[in-house]
């Protein structure tokens, strides 16, 4: 076991990070060890703060803004959508266990029935579908705000994504491959920044660890600009001058699955302010 871990770590540093033999649990363990070494002062639960955990001045601003965030009214719009009865009188709460409270930490999950990863947004749209309502467009503000409110009902719940069975593992591995693949004219992978160079600066931007990154979406950049997790994938990939994939594409859903698995054990908080 120890040897396997060492080999995996070595692979990380040498470049061949796709250690296909290691399973999700080993991946997570190895990454946790990697971050512990590179960011010795950061407590595990503070990974949810991303780069803010590395900078007191930035964290103070975050806390000042989160005390009464500029996006409260937007999230309220999401609440209205969540509470508005469908034509049949039911609401979104009827589609989720526990009325939608403390459930979002289990998403995305691999659905063996459809043979695909299902995200929380997929579940919101499935609810609309089952109630003969029109689905919301992926990447739309309305779906973003709805998911921001709905996920806030799971604040404090720990992320607990499961990867069970060969088909789920294949989806996880596909997401992982995406994470480690270089793309775009600038030739960066997600890992180039968030694993290899974590804590370092790209100009004034300090690079956050990928563990914890998936626990707080959607976020409001600049305090008022709604960005979903997959919207952030697209922004990052545009930044490296790659062609971004579509919202809700299978590969993005797999990437979300992989990334969220890596935040297992961390408390959800949605939505949040980011710069």
């Amino acid at each position, binding site marked *: 076991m120890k040897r396997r871990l060492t080999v995996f770590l070595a692979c990380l540093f040498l470049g061949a990070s796709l250690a296909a033999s290691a399973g999700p649990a080993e991946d997570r363990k190895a990454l946790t060890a990697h971050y512990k070494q590179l960011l010795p002062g950061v407590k595990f639960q503070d990974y949810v703060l991303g780069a803010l955990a590395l900078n007191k001045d930035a964290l103070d601003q975050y806390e000042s803004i989160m005390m009464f965030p*500029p996006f409260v009214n937007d999230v309220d719009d999401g609440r209205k959508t969540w509470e508005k009865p469908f034509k049949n009188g039911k609401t979104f709460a009827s589609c989720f266990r526990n009325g939608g409270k403390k459930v979002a930490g289990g998403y995305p999950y691999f659905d063996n029935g459809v043979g695909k990863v299902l995200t929380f947004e997929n579940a919101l749209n499935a609810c609309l579908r089952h109630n003969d309502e029109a689905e919301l467009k992926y990447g739309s503000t309305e779906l973003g705000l709805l998911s921001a409110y709905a996920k806030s009902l799971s604040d404090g719940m720990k992320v607990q994504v499961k990867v069970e069975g060969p088909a789920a593992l294949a989806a996880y591995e596909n997401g992982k491959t995406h994470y480690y693949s270089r793309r775009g004219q600038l030739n960066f992978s997600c890992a180039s920044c968030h694993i290899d160079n974590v804590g370092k600066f790209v100009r004034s931007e300090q690079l956050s660890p990928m563990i914890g990154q998936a626990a707080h979406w959607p976020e409001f950049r600049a305090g008022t600009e709604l960005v979903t997790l997959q919207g952030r994938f697209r922004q990052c990939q545009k930044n490296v001058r790659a062609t971004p994939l579509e919202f809700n594409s299978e590969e993005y859903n797999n990437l979300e699955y992989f990334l969220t698995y890596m935040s297992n054990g961390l408390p959800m908080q949605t939505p949040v302010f980011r710069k």
Partner: protein
Amino acid sequence: MAEGMKIRATLQGDVADVKALMNHIMETGLRKDANTGKLIPAHFINHVVATLNGKTVLEAQWGAAVAKNPFLGFRVKGAKAGDKIVINAVDNHGEKMSGESAIV
């Protein structure tokens, strides 16, 4: 003006700690429309008045560089639980919004 001023007023000793958030675009008049290339006209809250039980405690004049969805925090001494805070705001188009809250 869209609905939406939220006020939270809490008592700490005999000081009311008032926090308000107003839903407003706060357009500076300095930004260009990405599609047309034309300047987007300024549209911002320029006046705010807060009262405690009907008496003015704060009067503010704002320019367009107060951040979007403005936040305002202030403190009033000599307040009691149950006292009423009312905040009125008006923008440069003359549109008004207001909010009120009892101090808790």
